[in-house]
Protein backbone atom coordinates (compact mmCIF):
# COMPACT_ATOMS: atom_id res chain seq x y z
CA UNK A 1 0.00 0.00 0.00
CA UNK A 2 1.55 3.26 -1.12
CA UNK A 3 0.95 6.48 0.72
CA UNK A 4 2.35 9.81 -0.43
CA UNK A 5 3.98 11.93 2.24
CA UNK A 6 4.86 9.14 4.67
CA UNK A 7 7.97 11.16 5.46
CA UNK A 8 6.07 14.29 6.54
CA UNK A 9 5.76 13.45 10.21
CA UNK A 10 9.48 13.83 10.84
CA UNK A 11 9.75 16.93 8.67
CA UNK A 12 7.15 18.75 10.70
CA UNK A 13 8.73 17.57 13.95
CA UNK A 14 12.05 18.96 12.79
CA UNK A 15 10.66 22.49 12.64
CA UNK A 16 10.23 22.47 16.39
CA UNK A 17 13.35 20.58 17.32
CA UNK A 18 16.50 22.21 18.58
CA UNK A 19 19.61 21.67 16.43
CA UNK A 20 21.44 18.38 16.85
CA UNK A 21 24.83 20.03 16.37
CA UNK A 22 26.66 22.32 18.79
CA UNK A 23 28.73 25.43 18.13
CA UNK A 24 32.18 23.94 18.35
CA UNK A 25 34.62 25.12 19.72
CA UNK A 26 32.51 27.44 21.88
CA UNK A 27 30.46 24.45 23.01
CA UNK A 28 31.65 20.89 23.27
CA UNK A 29 29.89 17.57 23.37
CA UNK A 30 30.54 15.47 26.46
CA UNK A 31 33.22 12.85 25.89
CA UNK A 32 32.36 9.27 26.86
CA UNK A 33 34.61 7.78 29.48
CA UNK A 34 35.93 5.10 27.11
CA UNK A 35 37.32 7.54 24.54
CA UNK A 36 41.04 7.16 23.91
CA UNK A 37 42.94 10.38 23.35
CA UNK A 38 46.62 11.19 23.56
CA UNK A 39 48.70 8.56 25.39
CA UNK A 40 50.94 9.84 28.18
CA UNK A 41 54.03 8.27 29.71
CA UNK A 42 54.94 8.14 33.36
CA UNK A 43 58.71 7.60 33.62
CA UNK A 44 58.93 6.83 37.32
CA UNK A 45 57.31 3.41 37.02
CA UNK A 46 58.69 2.25 33.66
CA UNK A 47 60.95 -0.79 33.82
CA UNK A 48 61.98 -0.74 30.17
CA UNK A 49 60.42 -4.08 29.27
CA UNK A 50 59.56 -2.82 25.77
CA UNK A 51 56.18 -4.54 25.69
CA UNK A 52 54.59 -1.33 24.50
CA UNK A 53 57.06 -1.06 21.62
CA UNK A 54 56.51 -4.67 20.63
CA UNK A 55 52.73 -4.45 20.57
CA UNK A 56 52.17 -1.00 19.08
CA UNK A 57 50.61 -1.59 15.65
CA UNK A 58 51.95 1.59 14.10
CA UNK A 59 55.48 1.91 15.50
CA UNK A 60 54.36 5.04 17.28
CA UNK A 61 56.12 4.54 20.59
CA UNK A 62 59.83 4.45 21.31
CA UNK A 63 61.52 3.75 24.64
CA UNK A 64 65.16 4.65 25.21
CA UNK A 65 67.32 3.72 28.11
CA UNK A 66 69.10 6.82 29.42
CA UNK A 67 70.72 5.35 32.50
CA UNK A 68 70.11 2.56 34.94
CA UNK A 69 66.33 2.46 35.58
CA UNK A 70 65.83 5.71 33.71
CA UNK A 71 63.89 5.67 30.49
CA UNK A 72 62.69 8.18 27.97
CA UNK A 73 59.65 7.70 25.82
CA UNK A 74 58.71 9.27 22.51
CA UNK A 75 55.20 9.12 21.10
CA UNK A 76 54.85 9.84 17.40
CA UNK A 77 51.31 11.10 17.63
CA UNK A 78 50.99 11.57 13.89
CA UNK A 79 51.33 7.80 13.44
CA UNK A 80 49.49 6.77 16.57
CA UNK A 81 46.07 5.29 15.92
CA UNK A 82 44.96 5.78 19.54
CA UNK A 83 44.18 2.13 20.00
CA UNK A 84 45.42 2.03 23.57
CA UNK A 85 47.29 -1.24 23.07
CA UNK A 86 50.48 0.21 24.60
CA UNK A 87 48.61 1.14 27.76
CA UNK A 88 47.08 -2.32 27.89
CA UNK A 89 50.35 -4.14 27.27
CA UNK A 90 52.32 -2.18 29.85
CA UNK A 91 52.75 -4.33 32.96
CA UNK A 92 53.44 -1.28 35.15
CA UNK A 93 50.70 0.99 33.86
CA UNK A 94 53.33 3.52 32.86
CA UNK A 95 51.29 4.52 29.83
CA UNK A 96 47.76 5.83 30.16
CA UNK A 97 45.29 7.10 27.60
CA UNK A 98 43.93 10.59 28.23
CA UNK A 99 40.82 12.28 26.89
CA UNK A 100 42.85 14.85 24.96
CA UNK A 101 41.63 14.45 21.37
CA UNK A 102 42.09 17.96 19.97
CA UNK A 103 45.42 17.36 18.34
CA UNK A 104 44.82 18.85 14.91
CA UNK A 105 47.68 21.06 13.78
CA UNK A 106 49.31 22.39 10.63
CA UNK A 107 52.83 21.15 11.24
CA UNK A 108 53.06 17.41 11.78
CA UNK A 109 56.45 17.62 13.46
CA UNK A 110 54.96 19.07 16.62
CA UNK A 111 53.11 15.82 17.11
CA UNK A 112 56.13 14.26 18.74
CA UNK A 113 56.00 13.91 22.48
CA UNK A 114 59.19 13.27 24.38
CA UNK A 115 59.27 12.62 28.07
CA UNK A 116 62.19 11.38 30.10
CA UNK A 117 62.58 10.24 33.62
CA UNK A 118 64.80 11.98 36.15
CA UNK A 119 68.05 10.09 36.72
CA UNK A 120 68.04 7.96 39.84
CA UNK A 121 69.70 9.63 42.82
CA UNK A 122 72.63 7.58 44.15
CA UNK A 123 71.75 6.42 47.61
Amino acid at each position, binding site marked *: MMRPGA*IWRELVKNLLRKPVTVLYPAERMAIPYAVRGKPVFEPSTCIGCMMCVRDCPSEAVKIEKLAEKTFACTFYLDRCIYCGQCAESCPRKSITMTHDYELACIDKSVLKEYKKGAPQQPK
Partner: protein
Amino acid sequence: MSERMILPIGPQHPLLKEPTHFKFTLEGEKIVDADIRLGYNHRGIEKACEERTYLQDLYMVERICGICSFVHSTNFAQATEDILKVEIPQRAKYLRVIVGELERIHSHLLWLGVAGHEIGFDTLFMLSWRDREIVQDLLEIITGNRVNYSFNTIGGVRKDLSKEEIDQTIKGLKVLEEQTKYFADVATKETTFIGRVAGVGYLPKEVALSHCAVGPTARGSGVDIDVRRDLPYAAYGEIPFNVITSDRGDVLGRTIVRVGETLEAINIVRYAIEHLPSGPITAKVPRKVQPGEAFSRYEAPRGEAVLYARANGTEKPDRIKVRAPTLANLASVRHTLLNQTVADIPIIVAAIDPCLSCTDRTSVILKQDGSPKTEEIDWAELRKRSLISKPLK
Protein backbone atom coordinates in the same frame (compact mmCIF):
# COMPACT_ATOMS: atom_id res chain seq x y z
CA MET B 1 18.48 -1.72 -33.91
CA SER B 2 19.88 1.50 -32.57
CA GLU B 3 23.58 2.11 -32.47
CA ARG B 4 25.59 0.85 -29.54
CA MET B 5 27.82 3.08 -27.52
CA ILE B 6 30.26 2.53 -24.69
CA LEU B 7 29.94 4.65 -21.58
CA PRO B 8 32.97 4.51 -19.30
CA ILE B 9 32.50 5.56 -15.69
CA GLY B 10 35.40 5.84 -13.27
CA PRO B 11 37.89 5.16 -11.80
CA GLN B 12 37.42 8.77 -10.67
CA HIS B 13 33.86 9.91 -11.02
CA PRO B 14 31.47 11.98 -8.87
CA LEU B 15 29.06 9.04 -8.84
CA LEU B 16 31.56 6.79 -7.14
CA LYS B 17 32.82 7.20 -3.63
CA GLU B 18 35.60 4.76 -4.25
CA PRO B 19 37.76 4.16 -7.28
CA THR B 20 36.44 1.50 -9.61
CA HIS B 21 35.81 1.38 -13.31
CA PHE B 22 32.59 0.55 -15.14
CA LYS B 23 32.18 0.09 -18.85
CA PHE B 24 28.56 0.19 -19.94
CA THR B 25 27.41 -0.76 -23.41
CA LEU B 26 24.33 1.25 -24.20
CA GLU B 27 21.61 1.11 -26.78
CA GLY B 28 20.12 4.54 -26.42
CA GLU B 29 19.34 4.80 -22.73
CA LYS B 30 19.24 1.05 -22.21
CA ILE B 31 22.17 -0.86 -20.73
CA VAL B 32 22.89 -3.98 -22.77
CA ASP B 33 26.19 -4.95 -21.19
CA ALA B 34 28.26 -3.94 -18.21
CA ASP B 35 31.83 -4.64 -17.24
CA ILE B 36 33.38 -3.88 -13.88
CA ARG B 37 37.07 -3.51 -13.21
CA LEU B 38 38.50 -3.57 -9.73
CA GLY B 39 41.98 -3.12 -8.41
CA TYR B 40 42.38 0.63 -8.10
CA ASN B 41 42.50 0.54 -4.36
CA HIS B 42 44.65 -2.46 -3.59
CA ARG B 43 46.42 -1.72 -0.33
CA GLY B 44 48.36 -4.90 0.31
CA ILE B 45 46.82 -5.46 3.73
CA GLU B 46 47.05 -9.25 3.57
CA LYS B 47 50.74 -9.06 2.83
CA ALA B 48 51.29 -6.44 5.51
CA CYS B 49 49.67 -8.79 8.02
CA GLU B 50 52.44 -11.31 7.50
CA GLU B 51 54.95 -8.74 8.76
CA ARG B 52 53.15 -8.03 12.00
CA THR B 53 52.32 -9.95 15.13
CA TYR B 54 48.84 -11.34 15.71
CA LEU B 55 48.04 -8.56 18.11
CA GLN B 56 49.15 -5.86 15.67
CA ASP B 57 47.25 -7.57 12.85
CA LEU B 58 44.02 -7.13 14.73
CA TYR B 59 44.34 -3.40 14.22
CA MET B 60 45.51 -3.92 10.67
CA VAL B 61 42.55 -6.04 9.53
CA GLU B 62 40.23 -3.66 11.32
CA ARG B 63 41.27 -1.10 8.75
CA ILE B 64 40.16 -3.20 5.80
CA CYS B 65 36.80 -1.50 6.05
CA GLY B 66 35.84 1.76 7.67
CA ILE B 67 32.19 0.81 8.05
CA CYS B 68 32.28 -2.83 9.05
CA SER B 69 35.64 -2.84 10.80
CA PHE B 70 34.42 -5.02 13.63
CA VAL B 71 33.62 -7.74 11.10
CA HIS B 72 37.21 -8.19 10.07
CA SER B 73 38.75 -7.91 13.51
CA THR B 74 36.28 -10.45 14.92
CA ASN B 75 36.93 -12.74 11.98
CA PHE B 76 40.65 -12.52 12.55
CA ALA B 77 40.32 -13.05 16.30
CA GLN B 78 38.01 -16.03 15.74
CA ALA B 79 40.37 -17.66 13.27
CA THR B 80 43.35 -17.19 15.59
CA GLU B 81 41.42 -18.48 18.60
CA ASP B 82 40.44 -21.46 16.50
CA ILE B 83 44.06 -22.29 15.70
CA LEU B 84 45.01 -21.78 19.34
CA LYS B 85 42.03 -23.91 20.38
CA VAL B 86 40.98 -21.45 23.06
CA GLU B 87 37.38 -20.93 24.03
CA ILE B 88 36.68 -17.30 24.79
CA PRO B 89 34.61 -16.43 27.88
CA GLN B 90 30.85 -16.34 27.49
CA ARG B 91 30.66 -12.67 28.39
CA ALA B 92 33.12 -11.78 25.63
CA LYS B 93 30.94 -13.65 23.13
CA TYR B 94 27.91 -11.60 24.12
CA LEU B 95 29.89 -8.37 24.01
CA ARG B 96 31.03 -9.23 20.49
CA VAL B 97 27.42 -9.75 19.49
CA ILE B 98 26.41 -6.40 20.98
CA VAL B 99 29.07 -4.42 19.15
CA GLY B 100 28.58 -6.44 15.96
CA GLU B 101 24.86 -5.75 15.89
CA LEU B 102 25.29 -2.07 16.72
CA GLU B 103 27.64 -1.94 13.78
CA ARG B 104 25.00 -3.54 11.59
CA ILE B 105 22.48 -0.89 12.66
CA HIS B 106 24.92 1.88 11.80
CA SER B 107 25.83 0.31 8.46
CA HIS B 108 22.21 -0.22 7.41
CA LEU B 109 21.14 3.29 8.41
CA LEU B 110 24.10 4.62 6.50
CA TRP B 111 23.04 2.60 3.48
CA LEU B 112 19.47 3.84 3.71
CA GLY B 113 20.74 7.39 3.61
CA VAL B 114 23.00 6.67 0.64
CA ALA B 115 20.14 4.97 -1.20
CA GLY B 116 17.91 7.98 -0.53
CA HIS B 117 20.63 10.27 -1.81
CA GLU B 118 21.18 8.21 -4.98
CA ILE B 119 17.53 8.46 -5.94
CA GLY B 120 17.41 12.17 -5.17
CA PHE B 121 15.44 11.74 -1.96
CA ASP B 122 17.80 13.72 0.22
CA THR B 123 15.32 14.21 3.03
CA LEU B 124 15.63 10.53 3.80
CA PHE B 125 19.41 10.84 3.62
CA MET B 126 19.48 13.69 6.15
CA LEU B 127 17.07 12.00 8.54
CA SER B 128 18.64 8.57 8.53
CA TRP B 129 22.14 9.97 8.95
CA ARG B 130 20.95 12.15 11.78
CA ASP B 131 19.56 9.12 13.57
CA ARG B 132 22.62 7.09 12.77
CA GLU B 133 24.44 9.44 15.14
CA ILE B 134 22.56 7.81 18.01
CA VAL B 135 24.12 4.44 17.28
CA GLN B 136 27.50 6.03 16.59
CA ASP B 137 27.35 7.62 20.03
CA LEU B 138 26.47 4.27 21.55
CA LEU B 139 29.44 2.67 19.86
CA GLU B 140 31.64 5.45 21.17
CA ILE B 141 30.31 4.95 24.67
CA ILE B 142 30.84 1.20 24.57
CA THR B 143 34.12 0.94 22.68
CA GLY B 144 35.70 4.39 22.86
CA ASN B 145 35.60 5.10 19.14
CA ARG B 146 33.00 5.76 16.47
CA VAL B 147 34.71 3.61 13.87
CA ASN B 148 37.63 1.15 14.11
CA TYR B 149 36.63 0.38 17.65
CA SER B 150 39.75 -1.55 18.73
CA PHE B 151 37.37 -3.58 20.85
CA ASN B 152 38.56 -7.09 20.07
CA THR B 153 41.59 -8.85 21.28
CA ILE B 154 42.77 -12.38 20.72
CA GLY B 155 40.96 -14.37 23.36
CA GLY B 156 38.06 -12.01 23.99
CA VAL B 157 37.32 -8.32 24.11
CA ARG B 158 39.28 -5.46 25.62
CA LYS B 159 36.66 -3.54 27.46
CA ASP B 160 33.79 -4.45 29.72
CA LEU B 161 30.40 -2.83 29.77
CA SER B 162 29.60 -0.85 32.91
CA LYS B 163 26.19 -0.34 34.45
CA GLU B 164 25.90 3.25 33.19
CA GLU B 165 26.94 2.25 29.72
CA ILE B 166 24.25 -0.40 29.67
CA ASP B 167 21.67 2.16 30.79
CA GLN B 168 22.75 4.61 28.11
CA THR B 169 22.62 1.88 25.48
CA ILE B 170 19.10 0.81 26.46
CA LYS B 171 18.00 4.45 26.33
CA GLY B 172 19.58 4.97 22.93
CA LEU B 173 18.06 1.77 21.56
CA LYS B 174 14.59 2.99 22.46
CA VAL B 175 14.96 6.10 20.31
CA LEU B 176 16.60 4.07 17.57
CA GLU B 177 13.78 1.57 17.51
CA GLU B 178 11.19 4.28 17.18
CA GLN B 179 13.10 5.94 14.37
CA THR B 180 13.81 2.67 12.55
CA LYS B 181 10.12 1.83 12.64
CA TYR B 182 9.47 5.20 11.09
CA PHE B 183 12.02 4.48 8.36
CA ALA B 184 10.44 1.09 7.78
CA ASP B 185 7.18 2.94 7.30
CA VAL B 186 8.77 5.36 4.84
CA ALA B 187 10.51 2.58 2.90
CA THR B 188 7.36 0.52 2.52
CA LYS B 189 4.77 3.26 2.04
CA GLU B 190 6.24 6.51 0.77
CA THR B 191 5.23 6.90 -2.87
CA THR B 192 8.32 8.90 -3.80
CA PHE B 193 10.58 6.14 -2.61
CA ILE B 194 8.67 3.11 -3.87
CA GLY B 195 7.98 4.72 -7.22
CA ARG B 196 11.70 5.06 -7.78
CA VAL B 197 13.00 1.70 -6.56
CA ALA B 198 10.22 -0.84 -7.18
CA GLY B 199 11.14 -3.10 -10.09
CA VAL B 200 14.58 -1.52 -10.46
CA GLY B 201 17.65 -3.79 -10.50
CA TYR B 202 15.79 -7.07 -10.53
CA LEU B 203 17.78 -10.09 -9.41
CA PRO B 204 15.92 -13.41 -9.71
CA LYS B 205 16.49 -16.02 -7.02
CA GLU B 206 18.23 -18.48 -9.39
CA VAL B 207 20.70 -15.81 -10.49
CA ALA B 208 21.36 -14.77 -6.91
CA LEU B 209 22.16 -18.41 -6.16
CA SER B 210 24.22 -19.10 -9.28
CA HIS B 211 26.19 -15.86 -8.85
CA CYS B 212 26.83 -16.62 -5.17
CA ALA B 213 25.25 -13.43 -3.84
CA VAL B 214 25.41 -13.01 -0.07
CA GLY B 215 23.80 -10.92 2.65
CA PRO B 216 20.91 -8.56 2.02
CA THR B 217 21.47 -8.82 -1.75
CA ALA B 218 20.70 -12.55 -1.62
CA ARG B 219 18.02 -12.25 1.05
CA GLY B 220 16.31 -9.50 -0.94
CA SER B 221 15.92 -12.08 -3.71
CA GLY B 222 14.43 -14.69 -1.43
CA VAL B 223 17.60 -16.69 -0.72
CA ASP B 224 17.35 -17.62 2.92
CA ILE B 225 20.97 -17.57 4.07
CA ASP B 226 22.53 -16.04 7.14
CA VAL B 227 25.76 -17.20 8.76
CA ARG B 228 24.52 -16.08 12.15
CA ARG B 229 21.83 -18.74 12.00
CA ASP B 230 23.39 -21.34 9.70
CA LEU B 231 26.79 -21.53 11.36
CA PRO B 232 26.50 -19.61 14.63
CA TYR B 233 29.61 -17.90 15.92
CA ALA B 234 30.05 -15.81 19.09
CA ALA B 235 26.79 -16.06 21.05
CA TYR B 236 24.37 -16.17 18.11
CA GLY B 237 23.49 -19.80 18.81
CA GLU B 238 21.83 -18.73 22.06
CA ILE B 239 20.01 -15.65 20.83
CA PRO B 240 16.64 -15.88 19.10
CA PHE B 241 16.24 -13.74 16.00
CA ASN B 242 14.55 -13.82 12.61
CA VAL B 243 16.30 -13.85 9.28
CA ILE B 244 14.56 -11.26 7.13
CA THR B 245 14.00 -12.12 3.48
CA SER B 246 11.98 -10.64 0.68
CA ASP B 247 10.83 -12.27 -2.54
CA ARG B 248 10.73 -9.01 -4.47
CA GLY B 249 14.28 -9.25 -5.82
CA ASP B 250 14.51 -5.56 -6.68
CA VAL B 251 16.08 -2.61 -4.89
CA LEU B 252 12.91 -2.25 -2.82
CA GLY B 253 13.32 -5.86 -1.65
CA ARG B 254 16.87 -5.17 -0.52
CA THR B 255 15.66 -2.05 1.29
CA ILE B 256 12.94 -3.98 3.10
CA VAL B 257 15.49 -6.60 4.17
CA ARG B 258 17.93 -4.00 5.48
CA VAL B 259 15.34 -2.03 7.41
CA GLY B 260 13.91 -5.25 8.84
CA GLU B 261 17.38 -6.39 9.82
CA THR B 262 18.00 -3.12 11.61
CA LEU B 263 14.94 -3.74 13.76
CA GLU B 264 16.08 -7.32 14.38
CA ALA B 265 19.54 -6.06 15.33
CA ILE B 266 18.02 -3.74 17.93
CA ASN B 267 16.20 -6.71 19.44
CA ILE B 268 19.36 -8.82 19.41
CA VAL B 269 21.33 -6.11 21.24
CA ARG B 270 18.56 -5.78 23.78
CA TYR B 271 18.40 -9.53 24.32
CA ALA B 272 22.19 -9.79 24.61
CA ILE B 273 22.29 -6.99 27.19
CA GLU B 274 19.51 -8.55 29.23
CA HIS B 275 21.16 -11.97 29.18
CA LEU B 276 24.75 -10.75 29.51
CA PRO B 277 26.58 -13.43 31.50
CA SER B 278 28.97 -12.34 34.21
CA GLY B 279 32.57 -13.38 34.34
CA PRO B 280 35.86 -12.52 32.70
CA ILE B 281 36.10 -10.95 29.26
CA THR B 282 39.40 -12.38 28.07
CA ALA B 283 41.03 -15.77 28.02
CA LYS B 284 44.77 -15.97 28.33
CA VAL B 285 46.46 -16.71 25.03
CA PRO B 286 50.11 -17.32 24.17
CA ARG B 287 51.92 -14.87 21.92
CA LYS B 288 53.16 -17.60 19.63
CA VAL B 289 50.52 -19.45 17.68
CA GLN B 290 51.10 -23.14 16.99
CA PRO B 291 51.13 -24.26 13.36
CA GLY B 292 47.68 -24.75 11.93
CA GLU B 293 45.05 -23.13 9.82
CA ALA B 294 41.55 -21.84 10.37
CA PHE B 295 38.68 -20.43 8.44
CA SER B 296 36.27 -17.97 10.00
CA ARG B 297 32.92 -16.79 8.67
CA TYR B 298 30.98 -13.76 9.83
CA GLU B 299 27.69 -12.27 8.70
CA ALA B 300 28.74 -8.71 7.97
CA PRO B 301 26.11 -6.03 7.25
CA ARG B 302 26.82 -6.56 3.54
CA GLY B 303 26.89 -10.32 3.65
CA GLU B 304 29.19 -13.12 4.55
CA ALA B 305 32.82 -12.14 5.14
CA VAL B 306 35.38 -14.90 5.35
CA LEU B 307 38.91 -14.95 6.66
CA TYR B 308 41.49 -17.68 6.31
CA ALA B 309 44.54 -17.71 8.55
CA ARG B 310 47.54 -19.99 8.55
CA ALA B 311 49.98 -20.05 11.44
CA ASN B 312 53.54 -21.35 11.39
CA GLY B 313 54.38 -21.44 15.07
CA THR B 314 55.81 -17.94 15.28
CA GLU B 315 54.39 -14.67 16.54
CA LYS B 316 53.37 -13.68 13.02
CA PRO B 317 50.85 -15.36 10.75
CA ASP B 318 52.06 -17.17 7.68
CA ARG B 319 49.14 -16.17 5.49
CA ILE B 320 45.95 -14.18 5.85
CA LYS B 321 43.23 -14.20 3.24
CA VAL B 322 40.12 -12.08 3.42
CA ARG B 323 37.08 -12.28 1.18
CA ALA B 324 34.89 -9.25 1.70
CA PRO B 325 31.15 -9.60 0.95
CA THR B 326 31.25 -7.07 -1.85
CA LEU B 327 33.37 -9.37 -3.97
CA ALA B 328 30.66 -12.03 -3.76
CA ASN B 329 27.94 -9.53 -4.61
CA LEU B 330 29.68 -7.79 -7.49
CA ALA B 331 29.09 -10.72 -9.82
CA SER B 332 25.35 -10.22 -9.57
CA VAL B 333 25.56 -6.47 -10.20
CA ARG B 334 26.13 -6.99 -13.89
CA HIS B 335 22.94 -8.99 -14.12
CA THR B 336 20.89 -6.43 -12.23
CA LEU B 337 22.10 -3.66 -14.55
CA LEU B 338 21.04 -5.33 -17.79
CA ASN B 339 18.05 -3.76 -19.54
CA GLN B 340 17.94 -0.91 -17.07
CA THR B 341 18.44 2.73 -17.96
CA VAL B 342 21.47 4.91 -17.37
CA ALA B 343 19.66 6.89 -14.68
CA ASP B 344 19.25 3.69 -12.64
CA ILE B 345 22.98 2.97 -12.47
CA PRO B 346 23.67 4.81 -9.18
CA ILE B 347 20.93 3.15 -7.19
CA ILE B 348 21.52 -0.32 -8.64
CA VAL B 349 25.21 -0.19 -7.85
CA ALA B 350 24.49 1.29 -4.42
CA ALA B 351 21.92 -1.41 -3.72
CA ILE B 352 24.56 -4.03 -2.95
CA ASP B 353 26.15 -1.50 -0.59
CA PRO B 354 29.51 -1.85 -2.32
CA CYS B 355 32.68 -1.43 -0.36
CA LEU B 356 35.33 -1.61 -3.01
CA SER B 357 38.52 -0.96 -1.12
CA CYS B 358 37.67 -3.90 1.15
CA THR B 359 37.31 -6.03 -1.94
CA ASP B 360 40.52 -5.19 -3.77
CA ARG B 361 43.11 -7.90 -3.32
CA THR B 362 45.08 -7.47 -6.48
CA SER B 363 45.87 -4.96 -9.19
CA VAL B 364 45.89 -6.00 -12.82
CA ILE B 365 47.42 -3.63 -15.33
CA LEU B 366 46.28 -3.96 -18.92
CA LYS B 367 48.73 -3.14 -21.68
CA GLN B 368 47.70 -0.94 -24.59
CA ASP B 369 46.79 -4.00 -26.63
CA GLY B 370 44.51 -5.17 -23.88
CA SER B 371 46.55 -8.15 -22.72
CA PRO B 372 47.16 -8.28 -18.97
CA LYS B 373 50.71 -7.64 -17.92
CA THR B 374 51.40 -9.89 -15.01
CA GLU B 375 54.20 -9.09 -12.72
CA GLU B 376 55.04 -10.64 -9.43
CA ILE B 377 56.47 -8.30 -6.85
CA ASP B 378 58.07 -9.23 -3.59
CA TRP B 379 57.61 -7.66 -0.20
CA ALA B 380 60.56 -5.26 -0.53
CA GLU B 381 59.29 -4.00 -3.86
CA LEU B 382 55.76 -3.64 -2.54
CA ARG B 383 57.09 -1.65 0.35
CA LYS B 384 59.06 0.55 -2.04
CA ARG B 385 55.92 1.38 -3.98
CA SER B 386 53.86 2.05 -0.88
CA LEU B 387 53.34 5.37 0.80
CA ILE B 388 55.80 4.54 3.53
CA SER B 389 58.80 3.95 1.33
CA LYS B 390 61.37 4.53 4.03
CA PRO B 391 61.59 2.66 7.30
CA LEU B 392 59.92 4.70 10.03
CA LYS B 393 62.20 6.69 12.26
